């Protein structure tokens, strides 16, 4: 049944892709990478949703809830903080993006810092950091796709074949239909995710005995699980809200959806809906991870990432109805993963083709180059996902965020403070990145519960702010237009 479900799902994606490809209006990058800025509330909301909730959310978060217990309720908070922090970016960025015909996040940096000394270096640094974060993100999605394919087919499709086939599928619809195909398949996948999560919540509150039974089960195997977390964990809770909130608003794929909306009204309505999704998604998968504590005690660090498929496997064995419901959840999780991977791939191709190589918005050659780079990236990341299966998904999320958050001043501060200059922003970004990457590689990921990336960001902001103030007298001619 799992294989049949997977085949039907992939055939539906193919059908949507062909319809999206026929709706294409030109070969220009703005049509391929932004769907000609035509996304309405329904599709924009679902593509934002399906893109924001990924393999990390569907597999990594239950795993982390299993490892950390009740304190992982913080995940609902930090996913919500993302939609709050967007208030600082979207109302100012959107009108400029429409007027100046932005396609990539780097277009903002190019526009804002213009011909200042170090503007080009800042643009390249932002593009490199974003590309690294996207490559990491793509790797995590491919890894999660392989795991899900193996689980959904009961091992008939191996992890490696799953990675290869699903990666090829994503490349197919991204290349053929661009953002339009990605957004439309995301909408379908978002609906599938919501149906799957509703079924999962129904199981948790019904057949699994509800929240009381879940907590009783947890306390039997971990008697102190209900205790208030210690000071370091509470500080980490706060730090994670800051890390995810600030880093996620500079997700390239999110910024490009801000550009791709049909109008500002469509955009704000989509965000108004998005703010509820942590309650319907993150909270549900957190509860699933918690429910697994009483049922699957003794899993190792890496095995914990499998709690969702393991619980679904138990559920599926209860009868035909449960097996069908579990299959829907499996496919919903797979949909979440693929919809994030396709968006990441599209962003990676556009950033590499335009910000790093320097292609033009109106040149179809930039679109072709973006597609070739996307193909090379997914082949490389698929190979890596097959070779390096033994990395926890949450570990990958943290690494990505520690790097990405260093781009935040070039967007969030630059859009509000006319005095910010390119050179100190670039120096701050480099110093923040060295601190964050150094901490991660030296295994000093937190200091007193605070993420090393957040500490790097503090230094980054301090340098950008102090350096811009110091540069002020000589930069009068570059201040804001009257």
């Amino acid at each position: 049944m799992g294989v049949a479900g997977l085949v039907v799902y992939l055939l539906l994606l193919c059908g949507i892709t062909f319809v999206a490809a026929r709706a294409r209006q030109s070969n220009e990058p703005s049509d391929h990478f932004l769907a000609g800025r035509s996304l309405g509330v329904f599709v924009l909301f679902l593509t934002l949703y399906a893109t924001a909730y990924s393999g990390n959310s569907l597999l990594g978060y239950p795993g982390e809830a299993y490892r950390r217990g009740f304190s992982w309720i913080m995940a609902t908070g930090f996913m919500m903080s993302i939609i709050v922090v967007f208030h600082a970016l979207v109302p100012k960025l959107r009108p400029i993006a429409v007027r100046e015909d932005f396609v990539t996040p780097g277009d903002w940096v190019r526009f804002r810092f213009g011909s200042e000394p170090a503007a080009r270096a800042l643009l390249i640094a932002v593009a490199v950091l974003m590309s690294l974060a996207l490559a990491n993100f793509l790797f995590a999605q491919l890894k999660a796709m392989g795991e899900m394919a193996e689980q959904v087919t009961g091992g008939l499709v191996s992890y490696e074949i799953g990675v290869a086939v699903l990666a090829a599928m994503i490349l197919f619809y991204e290349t053929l239909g661009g953002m339009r195909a990605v957004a439309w398949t995301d909408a379908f996948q978002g609906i599938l995710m919501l149906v799957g999560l509703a079924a999962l919540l129904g199981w948790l509150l019904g057949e699994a005995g509800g929240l009381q039974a879940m907590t009783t089960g947890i306390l039997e195997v971990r008697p102190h699980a209900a205790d208030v977390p210690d000071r370091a964990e509470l500080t980490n809770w706060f730090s994670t809200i800051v890390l995810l909130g600030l880093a996620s608003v500079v997700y390239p794929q999110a910024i490009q959806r801000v550009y791709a909306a049909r109008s500002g009204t469509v955009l704000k309505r989509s965000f108004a809906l998005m703010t509820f999704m942590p309650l319907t998604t993150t909270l549900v998968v957190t509860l699933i991870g918690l429910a697994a504590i009483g049922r699957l005690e003794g899993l190792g660090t890496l095995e914990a990432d499998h709690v969702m498929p393991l619980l679904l496997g138990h559920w599926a064995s209860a009868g035909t109805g449960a097996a069908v419901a579990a299959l829907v959840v499996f496919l919903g999780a797979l949909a979440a993963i693929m919809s994030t991977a396709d968006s990441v791939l599209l962003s990676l191709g556009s950033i590499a083709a335009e910000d790093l190589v320097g292609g033009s918005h109106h040149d179809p050659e930039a679109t072709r180059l973006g597609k070739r780079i996307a193909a090379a990236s997914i082949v490389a990341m698929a190979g890596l996902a097959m070779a390096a299966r033994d990395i926890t998904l949450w570990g990958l999320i943290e690494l990505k965020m520690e790097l990405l958050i260093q781009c935040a001043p070039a967007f969030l501060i630059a859009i509000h403070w006319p005095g910010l200059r390119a050179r100190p922003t670039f120096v701050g970004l480099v110093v923040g990145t060295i601190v964050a990457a150094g901490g991660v590689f030296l295994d000093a990921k937190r200091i007193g519960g605070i993420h090393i990336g957040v500490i790097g960001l503090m230094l980054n902001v301090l340098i950008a702010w102090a350096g811009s103030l110091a540069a002020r007298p000589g930069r009068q001619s570059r201040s804001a237009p009257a």
Partner: protein
Amino acid sequence: MPDRAATPPAGRRSTANGVRRVLLAAIGVLFVISIPWYRGGVEPSIWFGLPDWVVVALACYVAVALLNSIAWLLTEVSDGDDEPPGSAR
């Protein structure tokens, strides 16, 4: 297509902006109190099947979702005429 018809008059815009700022400040407070800093050493009790501090955190996040949704609906996101800050062009 730019949605200029949705732009409210200046007076209403300023009130909406004020309300939006208050909502965002309240959201900040809710994020801080969602973290059980205030519970040192107190034995937790179970509410609705969950530890009480988890229920408080969830209640804060439900409130954040409601306030943030209203804040977004009050936000003006225009489609093209605003002057950018510090643009070098």
